[in-house]
């Protein structure tokens, strides 16, 4: 366009416009983050009379020898390993089903997306009732029906083997619609000619899915998996409401341990060290995503 820069100096106006947001980000995002990095190497506690000291990596050493935190880390990783593929597959399946232009598509899209507008804390409370122990509980009834009466009623949330899977299931129920919408937008952005060309070449449905749909959907898929992985590391609401990390730490998570540390024990430094570990995981996942995602506008 017409390069009329330098006509007047726009720096004062620009600074005025950007200042509120930049100030907010500085004070409430960058500064706290830098403080978290700094606190992690101290002995800081809320309301503690002890003098503030630099303690090096002591907090990290302590955390990594705490079986509770190690269990939390393992739970987060297990949650990600199960939920990310399952939820992405479900969302992709839903998106493919909706992309066929069948009757009622709009209604189905609404239904699958609906749980997304439910706050997670409400979802957790509803599912507490679904997982009610005893034969009258909804999940017990459903499994009884599916197993043709061979199911022994279980107390899902107090069973160390079932508590985490139970939380995984409701998380998938709540989150799949969000991913589905993103993948559906990705599907609809695929040029129809690509499918037609492949069909002309004699490619069947399955082959078109493998060689046209999946490669074209690469970036949305990677994005959706990144977001879900990070959500898995952030796992907190469901656990806090439904199990408080129990039974026997079976559902504890990094965030649950972090909140316990700062909230019930005022250990700001220890919680900050957990924050740093959490951040490094998020950073790692994001870097992997950047590596994997191809540049926009890529065509095979």
């Amino acid at each position, binding site marked *: 366009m017409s390069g009329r820069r330098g006509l007047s100096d726009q720096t004062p106006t620009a600074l005025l416009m*950007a200042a509120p947001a*930049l100030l907010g980000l500085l004070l409430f995002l960058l500064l706290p983050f830098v403080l978290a990095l700094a606190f992690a190497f101290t002995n800081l506690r809320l309301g503690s009379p002890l003098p503030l000291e630099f303690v090096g990596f002591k907090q990290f050493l302590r955390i990594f020898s705490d079986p509770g935190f190690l269990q939390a880390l393992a739970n987060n990783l297990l949650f990600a390993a199960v939920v990310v593929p399952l939820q992405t597959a479900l969302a992709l399946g839903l998106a493919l089903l909706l992309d066929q232009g069948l009757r009622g598509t709009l209604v189905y899209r609404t239904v699958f997306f609906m749980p997304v507008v439910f706050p997670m*804390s409400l979802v957790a409370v509803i599912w507490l009732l679904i997982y009610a122990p005893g034969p009258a509980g909804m999940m017990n009834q459903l499994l009884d029906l599916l197993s043709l009466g061979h199911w022994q009623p279980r107390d899902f949330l107090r069973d160390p083997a079932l508590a985490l899977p139970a939380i995984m299931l409701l998380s998938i129920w709540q989150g799949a619609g969000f991913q589905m919408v993103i993948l559906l937008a990705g599907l609809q952005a695929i040029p129809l000619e690509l499918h037609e060309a492949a069909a002309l070449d004699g490619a069947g449905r399955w082959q*078109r899915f493998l060689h046209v749909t999946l490669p074209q959907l690469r970036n949305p898929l990677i994005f959706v998996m990144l977001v879900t992985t990070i959500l898995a590391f952030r796992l907190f609401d469901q656990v806090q409401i439904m199990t408080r990390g129990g039974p026997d730490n079976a559902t504890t998570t990094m965030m649950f341990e972090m909140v316990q540390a700062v909230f019930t024990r005022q250990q700001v430094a220890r919680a900050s060290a957990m924050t740093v570990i959490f951040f490094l995981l998020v950073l790692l996942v994001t870097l992997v995503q950047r590596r994997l995602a191809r540049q926009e506008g890529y065509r095979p």
Partner: protein
Amino acid sequence: MIAHSRPVVRWLSQLLLLGLALLFLAPLAMMLLGSLKADARVLTDAGSIGGLLSGEFSLQNYRDVFARTDFLRFLFNSLFITSTIVLCGMLVNSLAAYAFARLEWRGRGLLFNAVLALMILPLEAIAVPLFYGISLLGLRDTYTAQILPFIANAFSIYLFYTFFIGLPKELEEAARLDGASTLRIFFSIIVPNAKPVFASVAILSFLMWWGAYLWPLMVTIGPQVRPLPVAIAAFYTLPPLQWGDILAFGVMMVLPVLAVFLLFQRWFVRGVAASGIKG
């Protein structure tokens, strides 16, 4: 996809969709029907469709919610906190995004890269020092603690930026030649032409803060400034455990949002899809 699939495939797809839809709806149906039943019946009836549909229905649970909790206060708190974040956020973040997208100024590139880098930080990565600071300042249990830190948002700036960059420059040229100020151009020309991105940002930040749990749980102490998500969790732990009341609380808590969602569905879907574009 190619439109002509075989009838068998279409028929199977329909069947699958119907089955999945029922599974997705089951928890919601249970919540709605359970909220209309006597507290003692909920646990015994909630397991099956027959049980849920039989027996007597009443609005007693809804009356109980108002008697046992300060529901309207929690509703007001949630609405006030979320709408303030959303409205102030739209203003502040769009102004910044416009400065980055269209104005020539020193430090622009550096600062914009900093904003992009900050997008990676979720609330959880700053919650501890923020909580520490809020506690030191004596701001726990206030609206300020739940609103002020979250108005500026790097991802919102990014969404606005990508939209503004795509607007044709001719829109502003004429006004600029007429001597209109930058702020005037922004409010009278850019904003009316950028409704879709404002809607996306509003919906995404609304969804994020309406359901927020971790932060309000940490900073609120009593029921005074407590928002709905924390309130329902607290209600669940309030003895005696009355499932009918809890479900009625849940229905009332989600109904306003559900209504808005059903009315503006297209915008919700677009807003969410917009968040994925950056992939």
